[in-house]
Protein backbone atom coordinates (compact mmCIF):
# COMPACT_ATOMS: atom_id res chain seq x y z
CA UNK A 1 0.00 0.00 0.00
CA UNK A 2 1.56 3.26 -1.10
CA UNK A 3 1.00 6.65 0.40
CA UNK A 4 -1.39 7.77 -2.30
CA UNK A 5 -3.67 4.80 -1.98
CA UNK A 6 -3.83 5.36 1.75
CA UNK A 7 -4.69 9.03 1.14
CA UNK A 8 -7.29 7.97 -1.37
CA UNK A 9 -8.79 5.46 1.01
CA UNK A 10 -9.00 8.01 3.79
CA UNK A 11 -10.55 10.66 1.57
CA UNK A 12 -13.03 8.22 0.11
CA UNK A 13 -14.08 7.12 3.56
CA UNK A 14 -14.28 10.68 4.77
CA UNK A 15 -16.48 11.90 1.95
CA UNK A 16 -18.68 8.86 2.35
CA UNK A 17 -18.94 9.58 6.06
CA UNK A 18 -19.90 13.21 5.39
CA UNK A 19 -22.72 12.33 3.06
CA UNK A 20 -23.94 9.69 5.49
CA UNK A 21 -24.08 12.37 8.16
CA UNK A 22 -26.01 14.58 5.74
CA UNK A 23 -28.39 11.71 5.09
CA UNK A 24 -29.09 11.04 8.74
CA UNK A 25 -29.64 14.75 9.35
CA UNK A 26 -32.15 14.68 6.52
CA UNK A 27 -33.96 11.68 7.98
CA UNK A 28 -34.05 13.21 11.44
CA UNK A 29 -35.45 16.43 10.05
CA UNK A 30 -38.04 14.57 7.97
CA UNK A 31 -39.22 12.81 11.10
CA UNK A 32 -38.91 16.02 13.09
CA UNK A 33 -41.10 18.16 10.82
CA UNK A 34 -43.66 15.36 10.66
CA UNK A 35 -43.90 15.03 14.44
CA UNK A 36 -43.91 18.81 14.70
CA UNK A 37 -46.82 19.06 12.27
CA UNK A 38 -48.88 16.47 14.11
CA UNK A 39 -48.10 18.06 17.48
CA UNK A 40 -49.27 21.39 16.14
CA UNK A 41 -52.39 19.86 14.60
CA UNK A 42 -53.26 17.78 17.65
CA UNK A 43 -52.12 19.89 20.57
CA UNK A 44 -51.58 23.33 19.10
CA UNK A 45 -47.93 23.24 20.12
CA UNK A 46 -44.77 22.97 18.12
CA UNK A 47 -41.08 22.87 18.75
CA UNK A 48 -39.65 26.05 17.29
CA UNK A 49 -36.25 24.37 17.25
CA UNK A 50 -37.35 22.21 14.31
CA UNK A 51 -38.37 25.22 12.23
CA UNK A 52 -35.32 27.22 13.24
CA UNK A 53 -32.77 24.46 12.67
CA UNK A 54 -34.69 23.10 9.66
CA UNK A 55 -33.97 26.31 7.80
CA UNK A 56 -30.28 25.39 7.76
CA UNK A 57 -30.66 21.84 6.54
CA UNK A 58 -30.55 22.62 2.82
CA UNK A 59 -27.29 24.53 3.33
CA UNK A 60 -25.74 21.86 5.51
CA UNK A 61 -26.73 18.95 3.29
CA UNK A 62 -25.56 20.78 0.17
CA UNK A 63 -22.04 21.18 1.48
CA UNK A 64 -21.79 17.89 3.36
CA UNK A 65 -22.64 16.13 0.12
CA UNK A 66 -20.34 18.02 -2.26
CA UNK A 67 -17.51 15.47 -2.38
CA UNK A 68 -19.80 12.46 -2.37
CA UNK A 69 -21.86 13.90 -5.19
CA UNK A 70 -18.66 14.39 -7.19
CA UNK A 71 -17.53 10.84 -6.59
CA UNK A 72 -20.94 9.60 -7.69
CA UNK A 73 -20.68 11.73 -10.81
CA UNK A 74 -23.71 13.81 -9.90
CA UNK A 75 -22.41 17.33 -10.35
CA UNK A 76 -23.86 18.09 -13.74
CA UNK A 77 -21.62 19.33 -16.50
CA UNK A 78 -22.42 20.07 -20.10
CA UNK A 79 -20.03 17.86 -21.98
CA UNK A 80 -20.44 19.30 -25.41
CA UNK A 81 -16.74 18.70 -26.12
CA UNK A 82 -17.47 15.05 -25.73
CA UNK A 83 -19.44 15.25 -28.95
CA UNK A 84 -17.17 17.46 -30.99
CA UNK A 85 -13.65 16.93 -29.65
CA UNK A 86 -11.35 14.02 -30.25
CA UNK A 87 -11.09 11.40 -27.57
CA UNK A 88 -7.61 12.24 -26.39
CA UNK A 89 -8.41 15.94 -26.06
CA UNK A 90 -11.63 15.28 -24.17
CA UNK A 91 -9.81 12.93 -21.83
CA UNK A 92 -7.12 15.49 -21.03
CA UNK A 93 -9.77 18.11 -20.40
CA UNK A 94 -11.90 15.92 -18.18
CA UNK A 95 -9.10 14.20 -16.32
CA UNK A 96 -6.70 17.09 -15.84
CA UNK A 97 -7.71 20.57 -16.96
CA UNK A 98 -11.16 20.68 -15.41
CA UNK A 99 -10.10 19.06 -12.13
CA UNK A 100 -7.24 21.56 -11.85
CA UNK A 101 -9.57 24.53 -12.41
CA UNK A 102 -12.02 23.00 -9.96
CA UNK A 103 -9.31 22.50 -7.32
CA UNK A 104 -8.17 26.09 -7.62
CA UNK A 105 -11.69 27.44 -7.36
CA UNK A 106 -12.74 25.16 -4.51
CA UNK A 107 -9.54 25.87 -2.59
CA UNK A 108 -10.21 29.59 -2.85
CA UNK A 109 -13.74 28.97 -1.64
CA UNK A 110 -12.34 27.05 1.32
CA UNK A 111 -10.05 29.93 2.23
CA UNK A 112 -12.68 32.62 1.83
CA UNK A 113 -15.40 30.82 3.72
CA UNK A 114 -12.94 29.88 6.46
CA UNK A 115 -12.24 33.58 6.87
CA UNK A 116 -15.96 34.24 7.09
CA UNK A 117 -16.39 31.42 9.59
CA UNK A 118 -13.68 32.97 11.77
CA UNK A 119 -15.40 36.30 11.47
CA UNK A 120 -18.72 34.87 12.64
CA UNK A 121 -16.90 33.02 15.40
CA UNK A 122 -15.28 36.23 16.59
CA UNK A 123 -18.41 38.37 16.52
CA UNK A 124 -20.33 35.66 18.34
CA UNK A 125 -23.35 36.02 16.09
CA UNK A 126 -26.20 33.67 16.93
CA UNK A 127 -29.22 32.54 14.95
CA UNK A 128 -32.60 34.18 15.43
CA UNK A 129 -35.52 32.83 17.35
CA UNK A 130 -36.16 30.96 20.54
CA UNK A 131 -33.13 28.71 20.31
CA UNK A 132 -30.13 30.84 19.43
CA UNK A 133 -27.35 28.72 17.95
CA UNK A 134 -23.86 29.96 17.09
CA UNK A 135 -23.93 30.98 13.44
CA UNK A 136 -20.34 29.98 12.75
CA UNK A 137 -21.23 26.29 13.05
CA UNK A 138 -23.47 26.51 9.99
CA UNK A 139 -20.91 28.62 8.18
CA UNK A 140 -18.17 26.11 9.00
CA UNK A 141 -19.92 23.39 7.02
CA UNK A 142 -19.14 25.32 3.83
CA UNK A 143 -15.31 25.22 4.08
CA UNK A 144 -15.44 21.75 5.57
CA UNK A 145 -17.47 20.24 2.73
CA UNK A 146 -15.51 22.17 0.14
CA UNK A 147 -12.21 21.02 1.63
CA UNK A 148 -13.10 17.34 1.30
CA UNK A 149 -14.12 18.03 -2.29
CA UNK A 150 -10.68 19.57 -2.87
CA UNK A 151 -9.02 16.49 -1.38
CA UNK A 152 -11.03 14.17 -3.62
CA UNK A 153 -10.09 16.19 -6.69
CA UNK A 154 -6.43 16.23 -5.66
CA UNK A 155 -6.37 12.54 -4.87
CA UNK A 156 -7.84 11.70 -8.27
CA UNK A 157 -5.38 14.01 -10.04
CA UNK A 158 -2.47 12.28 -8.34
CA UNK A 159 -3.93 8.87 -9.10
CA UNK A 160 -4.42 9.73 -12.75
CA UNK A 161 -0.84 10.89 -13.09
CA UNK A 162 0.35 7.66 -11.51
CA UNK A 163 -2.12 5.53 -13.43
CA UNK A 164 -3.85 4.28 -10.32
CA UNK A 165 -7.49 3.79 -9.41
CA UNK A 166 -9.59 6.92 -8.99
CA UNK A 167 -12.49 7.77 -6.71
CA UNK A 168 -14.74 9.68 -9.07
CA UNK A 169 -17.15 8.03 -11.41
CA UNK A 170 -17.12 10.49 -14.31
CA UNK A 171 -19.77 10.02 -16.93
CA UNK A 172 -17.12 10.86 -19.51
CA UNK A 173 -15.39 7.60 -18.68
CA UNK A 174 -18.57 5.73 -19.47
CA UNK A 175 -18.91 7.61 -22.72
CA UNK A 176 -15.31 6.85 -23.67
CA UNK A 177 -15.82 3.21 -22.84
CA UNK A 178 -13.52 2.99 -19.83
CA UNK A 179 -16.01 1.98 -17.26
CA UNK A 180 -18.18 -0.91 -16.32
CA UNK A 181 -21.50 -0.90 -18.15
CA UNK A 182 -23.14 0.78 -15.18
CA UNK A 183 -23.80 4.48 -15.53
CA UNK A 184 -23.57 7.20 -12.94
CA UNK A 185 -26.89 6.19 -11.43
CA UNK A 186 -25.15 3.33 -9.70
CA UNK A 187 -23.67 4.11 -6.38
CA UNK A 188 -20.04 3.57 -5.87
CA UNK A 189 -20.01 4.98 -2.37
CA UNK A 190 -16.45 5.76 -1.40
CA UNK A 191 -15.04 2.72 -3.14
CA UNK A 192 -12.11 3.36 -5.44
CA UNK A 193 -12.58 2.02 -8.92
CA UNK A 194 -10.04 0.97 -11.46
CA UNK A 195 -9.62 3.14 -14.49
Amino acid at each position, binding site marked *: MNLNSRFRGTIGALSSFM*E*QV*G*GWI*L*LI*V*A*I*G*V*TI*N*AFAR*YGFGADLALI*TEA*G*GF*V*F*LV*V*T*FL*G*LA*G*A*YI*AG*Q*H*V*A*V*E*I*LEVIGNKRF*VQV*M*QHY*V*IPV*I*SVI*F*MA*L*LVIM*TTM*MTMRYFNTGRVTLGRYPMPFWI*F*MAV*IPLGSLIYVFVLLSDLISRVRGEAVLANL*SIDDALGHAEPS*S*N*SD*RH*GGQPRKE
Partner: protein
Amino acid sequence: MSLGLLGFIFFIGMLFAIFLGLPVSIALAIVGLLGLLYVGGVNTVIIMSGTTAVHELSHFNLLAIPLFMLMSSAITASGIGNTIVDFVVKWLHRIPGALHSAAVISCGIFAAMSSSSVATAAAVGGFILPEMRKRGHNMRLGIGAVAVGGTLGMLIPPSNLFIVYGVMTETSISKLFMAGIVPGIMVVVVVVLFNTILFKMVPSLTPSAEYEHVPSKAEKMLALRNAWTGLLLITTVVGGIIFGVVTPTEAGGLGAVVALLIGFFVLKTIKGKDLPDILVQAVRTTSMLGFIIFSGLILARASTMMNLSSSVINLVQDTGLEPWQVMLIINILLLLLGTFMDGAAITIMTVPLLVPLVVAMGYDPIWFAVVFAINMELALVSPPVGLNIFVLQGVSGVPLRDAMIGTLPYALLLLGCLIILMIFPQIALWLPTVMSN
Protein backbone atom coordinates in the same frame (compact mmCIF):
# COMPACT_ATOMS: atom_id res chain seq x y z
CA MET B 1 -14.55 49.45 -19.70
CA SER B 2 -17.99 50.07 -21.16
CA LEU B 3 -20.88 48.23 -19.65
CA GLY B 4 -21.85 46.70 -22.94
CA LEU B 5 -18.43 45.18 -23.41
CA LEU B 6 -18.36 44.03 -19.81
CA GLY B 7 -21.72 42.35 -20.16
CA PHE B 8 -20.59 40.70 -23.35
CA ILE B 9 -17.41 39.35 -21.77
CA PHE B 10 -19.46 38.17 -18.80
CA PHE B 11 -21.90 36.30 -20.99
CA ILE B 12 -19.30 34.76 -23.29
CA GLY B 13 -17.12 33.84 -20.33
CA MET B 14 -19.93 31.95 -18.79
CA LEU B 15 -20.89 30.08 -21.91
CA PHE B 16 -17.24 29.21 -22.38
CA ALA B 17 -16.89 27.97 -18.81
CA ILE B 18 -20.03 25.87 -19.14
CA PHE B 19 -19.22 24.40 -22.53
CA LEU B 20 -15.67 23.69 -21.49
CA GLY B 21 -17.22 20.93 -19.44
CA LEU B 22 -16.73 22.40 -15.98
CA PRO B 23 -19.41 21.39 -13.52
CA VAL B 24 -22.18 23.91 -14.10
CA SER B 25 -22.02 25.08 -10.49
CA ILE B 26 -18.31 25.80 -10.62
CA ALA B 27 -18.58 27.47 -14.02
CA LEU B 28 -21.25 29.89 -12.80
CA ALA B 29 -19.46 30.60 -9.54
CA ILE B 30 -16.09 31.29 -11.17
CA VAL B 31 -17.59 33.81 -13.57
CA GLY B 32 -19.68 35.33 -10.79
CA LEU B 33 -16.77 35.71 -8.40
CA LEU B 34 -14.54 37.15 -11.11
CA GLY B 35 -17.28 39.67 -11.80
CA LEU B 36 -17.54 40.57 -8.13
CA LEU B 37 -13.76 40.83 -7.92
CA TYR B 38 -13.68 43.20 -10.87
CA VAL B 39 -16.39 45.49 -9.62
CA GLY B 40 -16.12 45.15 -5.84
CA GLY B 41 -12.63 43.98 -4.95
CA VAL B 42 -11.22 41.20 -2.78
CA ASN B 43 -13.21 42.04 0.34
CA THR B 44 -16.48 41.91 -1.55
CA VAL B 45 -15.66 38.50 -2.99
CA ILE B 46 -14.77 37.09 0.41
CA ILE B 47 -17.84 38.43 2.17
CA MET B 48 -20.27 37.64 -0.64
CA SER B 49 -19.06 34.07 -1.04
CA GLY B 50 -19.79 33.43 2.62
CA THR B 51 -22.96 35.41 3.21
CA THR B 52 -24.63 34.33 0.00
CA ALA B 53 -24.25 30.70 0.94
CA VAL B 54 -25.06 30.92 4.61
CA HIS B 55 -28.01 33.28 4.32
CA GLU B 56 -29.55 32.51 0.97
CA LEU B 57 -29.44 28.73 1.26
CA SER B 58 -30.91 28.79 4.74
CA HIS B 59 -34.55 29.58 4.07
CA PHE B 60 -37.01 27.13 5.54
CA ASN B 61 -38.85 26.80 2.19
CA LEU B 62 -35.71 25.36 0.64
CA LEU B 63 -36.03 22.43 3.01
CA ALA B 64 -38.76 21.25 0.63
CA ILE B 65 -36.08 20.30 -1.90
CA PRO B 66 -34.11 17.74 0.18
CA LEU B 67 -37.30 16.43 1.78
CA PHE B 68 -38.97 15.73 -1.55
CA MET B 69 -35.70 14.29 -2.82
CA LEU B 70 -35.74 11.93 0.13
CA MET B 71 -39.34 11.01 -0.57
CA SER B 72 -38.40 10.45 -4.17
CA SER B 73 -35.48 8.13 -3.40
CA ALA B 74 -37.61 6.27 -0.84
CA ILE B 75 -40.30 5.74 -3.48
CA THR B 76 -37.73 4.48 -5.94
CA ALA B 77 -36.22 2.05 -3.45
CA SER B 78 -39.55 0.79 -2.14
CA GLY B 79 -41.16 0.17 -5.51
CA ILE B 80 -44.26 2.13 -4.57
CA GLY B 81 -43.99 3.86 -7.93
CA ASN B 82 -44.27 0.49 -9.62
CA THR B 83 -47.81 -0.12 -8.35
CA ILE B 84 -49.03 3.29 -9.42
CA VAL B 85 -47.44 3.09 -12.83
CA ASP B 86 -48.89 -0.38 -13.31
CA PHE B 87 -52.29 0.98 -12.43
CA VAL B 88 -52.02 3.87 -14.91
CA VAL B 89 -50.71 1.64 -17.69
CA LYS B 90 -53.44 -0.98 -17.28
CA TRP B 91 -56.38 1.33 -16.81
CA LEU B 92 -55.46 3.86 -19.48
CA HIS B 93 -54.28 1.27 -21.94
CA ARG B 94 -56.29 2.69 -24.82
CA ILE B 95 -54.86 6.18 -24.54
CA PRO B 96 -51.60 6.66 -26.43
CA GLY B 97 -48.84 8.04 -24.22
CA ALA B 98 -51.05 7.69 -21.16
CA LEU B 99 -48.16 7.32 -18.76
CA HIS B 100 -46.44 10.45 -20.01
CA SER B 101 -49.70 12.38 -19.89
CA ALA B 102 -50.49 11.06 -16.43
CA ALA B 103 -47.11 12.37 -15.32
CA VAL B 104 -47.98 15.86 -16.49
CA ILE B 105 -51.45 15.78 -14.95
CA SER B 106 -49.95 14.57 -11.68
CA CYS B 107 -47.55 17.49 -11.83
CA GLY B 108 -50.48 19.86 -12.30
CA ILE B 109 -52.28 18.39 -9.28
CA PHE B 110 -49.18 18.43 -7.15
CA ALA B 111 -48.43 21.99 -8.26
CA ALA B 112 -51.75 23.00 -6.76
CA MET B 113 -50.33 21.95 -3.36
CA SER B 114 -46.71 22.94 -3.61
CA SER B 115 -45.09 26.30 -4.24
CA SER B 116 -41.89 24.84 -5.53
CA SER B 117 -41.27 23.69 -9.08
CA VAL B 118 -38.23 21.65 -8.16
CA ALA B 119 -40.13 19.85 -5.40
CA THR B 120 -42.97 19.14 -7.82
CA ALA B 121 -40.60 17.65 -10.37
CA ALA B 122 -38.78 15.60 -7.72
CA ALA B 123 -41.99 14.25 -6.20
CA VAL B 124 -43.64 13.19 -9.46
CA GLY B 125 -40.37 12.19 -11.09
CA GLY B 126 -39.57 9.89 -8.18
CA PHE B 127 -42.85 8.08 -8.66
CA ILE B 128 -42.77 7.64 -12.38
CA LEU B 129 -39.32 7.89 -13.94
CA PRO B 130 -37.51 4.92 -12.38
CA GLU B 131 -40.48 2.74 -13.34
CA MET B 132 -40.57 4.09 -16.87
CA ARG B 133 -36.95 3.18 -17.16
CA LYS B 134 -37.46 -0.36 -15.88
CA ARG B 135 -40.34 -0.94 -18.27
CA GLY B 136 -38.48 0.38 -21.26
CA HIS B 137 -40.60 3.46 -21.85
CA ASN B 138 -39.12 6.38 -23.73
CA MET B 139 -37.05 8.06 -21.02
CA ARG B 140 -36.18 11.19 -22.92
CA LEU B 141 -39.82 12.08 -23.37
CA GLY B 142 -40.59 10.94 -19.84
CA ILE B 143 -38.08 13.35 -18.37
CA GLY B 144 -39.27 16.09 -20.69
CA ALA B 145 -42.89 15.65 -19.64
CA VAL B 146 -42.10 15.68 -15.92
CA ALA B 147 -39.56 18.51 -16.21
CA VAL B 148 -42.05 20.79 -17.93
CA GLY B 149 -44.96 19.53 -15.84
CA GLY B 150 -42.91 20.22 -12.73
CA THR B 151 -42.47 23.86 -13.65
CA LEU B 152 -46.20 24.27 -13.08
CA GLY B 153 -45.31 24.44 -9.37
CA MET B 154 -44.74 28.14 -9.79
CA LEU B 155 -47.58 28.87 -12.24
CA ILE B 156 -50.44 27.03 -10.58
CA PRO B 157 -51.14 28.52 -7.14
CA PRO B 158 -49.80 28.50 -4.50
CA SER B 159 -46.64 29.96 -5.95
CA ASN B 160 -43.58 31.45 -4.28
CA LEU B 161 -42.86 33.39 -7.42
CA PHE B 162 -46.22 35.17 -7.35
CA ILE B 163 -45.80 35.92 -3.65
CA VAL B 164 -42.40 37.49 -4.24
CA TYR B 165 -43.72 39.35 -7.30
CA GLY B 166 -46.77 40.56 -5.38
CA VAL B 167 -44.74 41.86 -2.47
CA MET B 168 -42.19 43.55 -4.72
CA THR B 169 -44.81 45.25 -6.86
CA GLU B 170 -47.71 45.59 -4.42
CA THR B 171 -50.05 43.76 -6.74
CA SER B 172 -52.73 41.58 -5.19
CA ILE B 173 -51.34 38.13 -4.54
CA SER B 174 -54.75 36.53 -4.71
CA LYS B 175 -55.31 38.03 -8.17
CA LEU B 176 -51.90 36.77 -9.24
CA PHE B 177 -52.81 33.31 -7.99
CA MET B 178 -56.05 33.37 -9.95
CA ALA B 179 -54.27 34.60 -13.05
CA GLY B 180 -51.99 31.57 -12.99
CA ILE B 181 -54.77 28.97 -12.98
CA VAL B 182 -56.04 29.09 -16.56
CA PRO B 183 -52.58 29.34 -18.15
CA GLY B 184 -51.49 26.47 -15.92
CA ILE B 185 -54.36 24.31 -17.12
CA MET B 186 -53.60 25.41 -20.66
CA VAL B 187 -50.05 24.09 -20.36
CA VAL B 188 -51.33 20.74 -19.07
CA VAL B 189 -53.85 20.45 -21.89
CA VAL B 190 -51.32 21.38 -24.57
CA VAL B 191 -48.80 18.86 -23.29
CA VAL B 192 -51.38 16.08 -22.99
CA LEU B 193 -52.63 16.75 -26.54
CA PHE B 194 -49.06 16.68 -27.82
CA ASN B 195 -48.39 13.39 -26.03
CA THR B 196 -51.53 11.78 -27.32
CA ILE B 197 -50.89 12.77 -30.91
CA LEU B 198 -47.20 11.91 -30.79
CA PHE B 199 -47.65 8.48 -29.21
CA LYS B 200 -50.56 7.74 -31.53
CA MET B 201 -48.49 8.59 -34.60
CA VAL B 202 -45.39 6.78 -33.40
CA PRO B 203 -46.55 3.55 -31.76
CA SER B 204 -42.96 2.39 -31.37
CA LEU B 205 -42.57 4.92 -28.54
CA THR B 206 -44.63 2.63 -26.31
CA PRO B 207 -42.97 -0.63 -25.21
CA SER B 208 -44.42 -3.34 -27.40
CA ALA B 209 -45.31 -5.56 -24.45
CA GLU B 210 -47.65 -2.89 -23.19
CA TYR B 211 -48.84 -1.79 -26.60
CA GLU B 212 -49.90 -5.25 -27.71
CA HIS B 213 -51.20 -6.66 -24.46
CA VAL B 214 -54.80 -5.72 -23.74
CA PRO B 215 -55.25 -6.07 -19.99
CA SER B 216 -58.22 -8.13 -18.80
CA LYS B 217 -60.70 -6.87 -16.26
CA ALA B 218 -59.13 -9.12 -13.64
CA GLU B 219 -55.70 -7.69 -14.35
CA LYS B 220 -57.09 -4.20 -14.03
CA MET B 221 -58.68 -4.99 -10.68
CA LEU B 222 -55.46 -6.55 -9.46
CA ALA B 223 -53.53 -3.45 -10.48
CA LEU B 224 -56.02 -1.30 -8.61
CA ARG B 225 -55.70 -3.45 -5.50
CA ASN B 226 -51.93 -3.35 -5.67
CA ALA B 227 -51.90 0.38 -6.11
CA TRP B 228 -53.18 1.04 -2.62
CA THR B 229 -49.74 1.76 -1.17
CA GLY B 230 -49.13 4.44 -3.77
CA LEU B 231 -52.61 5.85 -3.32
CA LEU B 232 -52.07 5.87 0.44
CA LEU B 233 -48.87 7.84 0.05
CA ILE B 234 -50.43 10.34 -2.33
CA THR B 235 -53.50 10.71 -0.13
CA THR B 236 -51.33 11.28 2.93
CA VAL B 237 -49.26 14.00 1.31
CA VAL B 238 -52.08 15.76 -0.52
CA GLY B 239 -54.61 15.25 2.28
CA GLY B 240 -52.07 16.39 4.85
CA ILE B 241 -51.76 19.71 3.06
CA ILE B 242 -55.46 20.15 2.33
CA PHE B 243 -56.54 19.44 5.88
CA GLY B 244 -53.92 21.74 7.32
CA VAL B 245 -51.90 19.09 9.10
CA VAL B 246 -48.69 19.85 7.26
CA THR B 247 -47.43 22.87 5.36
CA PRO B 248 -46.25 22.23 1.80
CA THR B 249 -42.63 22.01 2.96
CA GLU B 250 -43.42 19.65 5.83
CA ALA B 251 -45.39 17.52 3.39
CA GLY B 252 -42.05 16.46 1.93
CA GLY B 253 -40.98 15.15 5.33
CA LEU B 254 -44.27 13.40 5.88
CA GLY B 255 -44.11 11.88 2.40
CA ALA B 256 -40.56 10.64 2.96
CA VAL B 257 -41.44 9.08 6.31
CA VAL B 258 -44.57 7.40 4.97
CA ALA B 259 -42.77 6.12 1.86
CA LEU B 260 -40.03 4.63 4.04
CA LEU B 261 -42.57 3.05 6.39
CA ILE B 262 -44.44 1.50 3.47
CA GLY B 263 -41.17 0.19 2.05
CA PHE B 264 -40.09 -1.27 5.41
CA PHE B 265 -43.29 -2.71 6.78
CA VAL B 266 -45.82 -3.11 3.98
CA LEU B 267 -43.97 -3.95 0.80
CA LYS B 268 -40.90 -5.16 2.74
CA THR B 269 -38.77 -4.01 -0.18
CA ILE B 270 -36.51 -1.86 2.00
CA LYS B 271 -34.22 -3.47 4.55
CA GLY B 272 -32.30 -1.70 7.26
CA LYS B 273 -29.07 -1.97 5.31
CA ASP B 274 -30.67 -0.15 2.33
CA LEU B 275 -31.43 2.93 4.37
CA PRO B 276 -28.01 4.63 4.10
CA ASP B 277 -28.09 4.36 0.30
CA ILE B 278 -31.56 5.89 0.16
CA LEU B 279 -30.52 8.77 2.37
CA VAL B 280 -27.27 9.34 0.53
CA GLN B 281 -29.01 9.45 -2.84
CA ALA B 282 -31.16 12.33 -1.60
CA VAL B 283 -28.08 14.07 -0.22
CA ARG B 284 -26.25 13.86 -3.55
CA THR B 285 -29.07 15.28 -5.65
CA THR B 286 -29.63 18.03 -3.07
CA SER B 287 -25.95 18.83 -3.01
CA MET B 288 -25.73 19.11 -6.78
CA LEU B 289 -28.75 21.39 -6.85
CA GLY B 290 -27.81 23.48 -3.82
CA PHE B 291 -24.38 24.22 -5.19
CA ILE B 292 -25.87 25.36 -8.50
CA ILE B 293 -28.39 27.58 -6.71
CA PHE B 294 -25.53 29.09 -4.69
CA SER B 295 -23.47 29.72 -7.82
CA GLY B 296 -26.43 31.18 -9.66
CA LEU B 297 -26.93 33.66 -6.83
CA ILE B 298 -23.26 34.67 -6.92
CA LEU B 299 -23.59 35.24 -10.64
CA ALA B 300 -26.79 37.23 -10.23
CA ARG B 301 -25.22 39.40 -7.56
CA ALA B 302 -22.20 40.06 -9.72
CA SER B 303 -24.34 41.22 -12.59
CA THR B 304 -26.44 43.35 -10.24
CA MET B 305 -23.33 44.94 -8.82
CA MET B 306 -22.14 45.68 -12.34
CA ASN B 307 -25.55 47.21 -13.00
CA LEU B 308 -25.95 44.98 -16.03
CA SER B 309 -29.69 44.43 -15.76
CA SER B 310 -30.53 48.02 -14.94
CA SER B 311 -28.40 49.27 -17.83
CA VAL B 312 -30.04 46.89 -20.26
CA ILE B 313 -33.47 47.92 -19.03
CA ASN B 314 -32.61 51.61 -19.36
CA LEU B 315 -31.26 50.95 -22.82
CA VAL B 316 -34.46 49.23 -23.88
CA GLN B 317 -36.50 52.02 -22.37
CA ASP B 318 -34.60 54.71 -24.23
CA THR B 319 -34.85 53.15 -27.66
CA GLY B 320 -38.20 54.80 -28.28
CA LEU B 321 -39.64 51.55 -29.58
CA GLU B 322 -43.32 50.71 -29.49
CA PRO B 323 -44.47 49.06 -26.25
CA TRP B 324 -45.05 45.70 -27.93
CA GLN B 325 -41.54 45.78 -29.33
CA VAL B 326 -40.13 46.56 -25.91
CA MET B 327 -42.19 43.70 -24.48
CA LEU B 328 -40.79 41.40 -27.12
CA ILE B 329 -37.24 42.43 -26.26
CA ILE B 330 -37.93 41.93 -22.55
CA ASN B 331 -39.12 38.42 -23.26
CA ILE B 332 -36.11 37.61 -25.37
CA LEU B 333 -33.82 38.91 -22.63
CA LEU B 334 -35.63 36.86 -20.02
CA LEU B 335 -35.35 33.78 -22.20
CA LEU B 336 -31.64 34.37 -22.64
CA LEU B 337 -31.09 34.95 -18.95
CA GLY B 338 -33.14 31.85 -18.29
CA THR B 339 -30.89 29.64 -20.32
CA PHE B 340 -28.09 29.82 -17.75
CA MET B 341 -29.68 31.31 -14.64
CA ASP B 342 -32.07 29.99 -12.07
CA GLY B 343 -35.55 31.53 -11.92
CA ALA B 344 -35.32 32.68 -8.32
CA ALA B 345 -32.12 34.60 -9.04
CA ILE B 346 -33.60 36.21 -12.15
CA THR B 347 -36.69 37.23 -10.22
CA ILE B 348 -34.72 38.99 -7.50
CA MET B 349 -32.53 40.66 -10.09
CA THR B 350 -35.08 41.87 -12.57
CA VAL B 351 -38.61 42.16 -11.17
CA PRO B 352 -38.02 45.35 -9.15
CA LEU B 353 -36.55 46.97 -12.25
CA LEU B 354 -38.80 45.53 -14.96
CA VAL B 355 -42.25 45.95 -13.51
CA PRO B 356 -42.20 49.76 -13.21
CA LEU B 357 -41.19 49.91 -16.88
CA VAL B 358 -43.88 47.45 -17.93
CA VAL B 359 -46.57 49.30 -16.00
CA ALA B 360 -45.42 52.64 -17.40
CA MET B 361 -45.91 51.23 -20.89
CA GLY B 362 -49.51 50.53 -20.01
CA TYR B 363 -49.34 46.77 -19.53
CA ASP B 364 -51.27 44.99 -16.82
CA PRO B 365 -48.86 43.94 -14.04
CA ILE B 366 -50.98 40.85 -13.36
CA TRP B 367 -50.69 39.71 -16.95
CA PHE B 368 -46.98 40.44 -16.92
CA ALA B 369 -46.60 38.35 -13.78
CA VAL B 370 -47.89 35.33 -15.68
CA VAL B 371 -45.71 36.12 -18.68
CA PHE B 372 -42.77 36.38 -16.31
CA ALA B 373 -43.71 33.14 -14.58
CA ILE B 374 -43.78 31.20 -17.85
CA ASN B 375 -40.39 32.69 -18.70
CA MET B 376 -39.09 31.44 -15.37
CA GLU B 377 -40.63 28.03 -16.08
CA LEU B 378 -38.70 28.00 -19.33
CA ALA B 379 -35.56 28.86 -17.39
CA LEU B 380 -35.99 25.64 -15.42
CA VAL B 381 -36.11 23.52 -18.56
CA SER B 382 -33.91 25.32 -21.07
CA PRO B 383 -30.35 24.11 -21.60
CA PRO B 384 -27.58 24.48 -20.62
CA VAL B 385 -28.66 25.29 -17.04
CA GLY B 386 -32.12 23.93 -16.23
CA LEU B 387 -32.67 22.91 -12.64
CA ASN B 388 -35.63 20.65 -13.37
CA ILE B 389 -33.63 18.75 -15.97
CA PHE B 390 -30.80 18.36 -13.47
CA VAL B 391 -33.12 17.13 -10.73
CA LEU B 392 -34.75 14.56 -12.96
CA GLN B 393 -31.56 13.21 -14.41
CA GLY B 394 -30.41 12.86 -10.78
CA VAL B 395 -33.62 11.08 -9.81
CA SER B 396 -33.70 8.79 -12.86
CA GLY B 397 -30.02 8.21 -13.61
CA VAL B 398 -30.48 9.04 -17.29
CA PRO B 399 -27.50 10.77 -18.95
CA LEU B 400 -27.79 14.54 -18.97
CA ARG B 401 -27.67 14.77 -22.74
CA ASP B 402 -30.70 12.51 -23.12
CA ALA B 403 -32.54 14.48 -20.48
CA MET B 404 -31.89 17.72 -22.32
CA ILE B 405 -32.88 16.36 -25.69
CA GLY B 406 -36.09 14.93 -24.29
CA THR B 407 -37.00 18.18 -22.59
CA LEU B 408 -36.57 20.28 -25.70
CA PRO B 409 -39.91 19.51 -27.44
CA TYR B 410 -41.82 20.14 -24.21
CA ALA B 411 -39.92 23.36 -23.60
CA LEU B 412 -40.98 24.45 -27.09
CA LEU B 413 -44.59 23.71 -26.19
CA LEU B 414 -44.16 25.92 -23.14
CA LEU B 415 -42.72 28.64 -25.36
CA GLY B 416 -45.78 28.22 -27.59
CA CYS B 417 -48.00 28.75 -24.55
CA LEU B 418 -46.05 31.89 -23.73
CA ILE B 419 -46.62 33.25 -27.23
CA ILE B 420 -50.33 32.44 -27.03
CA LEU B 421 -50.50 34.27 -23.70
CA MET B 422 -48.72 37.28 -25.18
CA ILE B 423 -51.27 37.45 -27.99
CA PHE B 424 -54.30 36.70 -25.81
CA PRO B 425 -53.76 38.33 -22.39
CA GLN B 426 -57.33 37.38 -21.51
CA ILE B 427 -56.20 33.83 -20.82
CA ALA B 428 -54.53 35.13 -17.68
CA LEU B 429 -56.77 38.09 -16.93
CA TRP B 430 -60.16 36.49 -17.41
CA LEU B 431 -60.37 34.66 -14.09
CA PRO B 432 -59.14 37.47 -11.82
CA THR B 433 -61.54 39.86 -13.56
CA VAL B 434 -64.50 37.53 -13.20
CA MET B 435 -63.67 36.76 -9.58
CA SER B 436 -63.34 40.39 -8.52
CA ASN B 437 -66.73 41.31 -10.03
